[in-house]
């Protein structure tokens, strides 16, 4: 079994209103000195069997087509084990 983790974040130049709202809440709840918060998404994908080259390439493709929108987001793909 293989586990792949895909993290998706808005590109740095795209405004993140959710992150900004969380930043405000952290401050109101007593955490001082928060200079920025960006909110992203994490996908934990468990696969049966070993991750071969074909499925690895397919995952990379779908991370850019389905899991993220390359116009506004970047993704990182990590094979955990």
């Amino acid at each position: 079994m293989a586990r792949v983790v895909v993290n998706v974040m808005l590109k740095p130049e795209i405004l993140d209103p959710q992150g900004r709202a969380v930043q405000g809440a952290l401050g109101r709840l007593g955490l001082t000195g928060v200079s920025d918060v960006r909110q992203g998404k994490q996908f934990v994908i468990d696969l049966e069997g070993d991750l071969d080259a074909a499925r690895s390439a397919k995952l990379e493709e779908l991370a850019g087509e389905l899991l993220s929108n390359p116009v506004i987001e970047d993704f990182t793909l990590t094979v955990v084990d």
Partner: protein
Amino acid sequence: MSARIGVVTFPGSLDDRDAARAISIAGGEAVSLWHGDADLKNVDAVVLPGGFSYGDYLRCGAIAKFAPVMSLIIEKAHQGLPVLGICNGFQILCESHLLPGALTRNDHQHFICRDQKLRIENTDSYWTRDYSMGQEIVIPLKNGEGGYVADEKTLDELFAEGRVIATYQDGNPNGSYRDIAGITNSRGNVVGLMPHPEHAVEALTGPSLDGLGFFTSAISSLVNA
């Protein structure tokens, strides 16, 4: 002969009935299309209505672009089929890369619902020919993720090529870059618009009849083709 305009219903579509009604009032024949059918029923044009297709899961419009009906619409749109995407439909068109850019969460973090003044900036597209250049219209706007974003180069191109079809007036409701409310592709057959012209076609329920022009534009273009 009246123009046959398809309206797609996805799970979570809200405004498909209003869009169909607007098409009828504008003199066209509205044809219901189902997201799961790879069949366009020989329609002459398609409207992707507002709502929350697939619950807005993942990203607005991200799942809808893979619906069986969308693969046909994407293929035909590249060949010139007129397609109007309203609100969630606009998001689907951007996710499908039929239009550049993306729609992101409103910069002020709130859902907004109000009558919105727009200025028509393009009268060449299939969906805006019945308006006059610079005409101001008022139609309803209702969105949570209506902020239009694109890189500077794309924004410059959209304005230079006259592909911005409408801009927000008297206040930007959602943080859209350069007050963009709607855009078209270079061919002028695919149009995405965040506000809702289908809700402004009858005196009883709308703030104006200003939305009718989007539908009559396409219908007269198709009938005279």
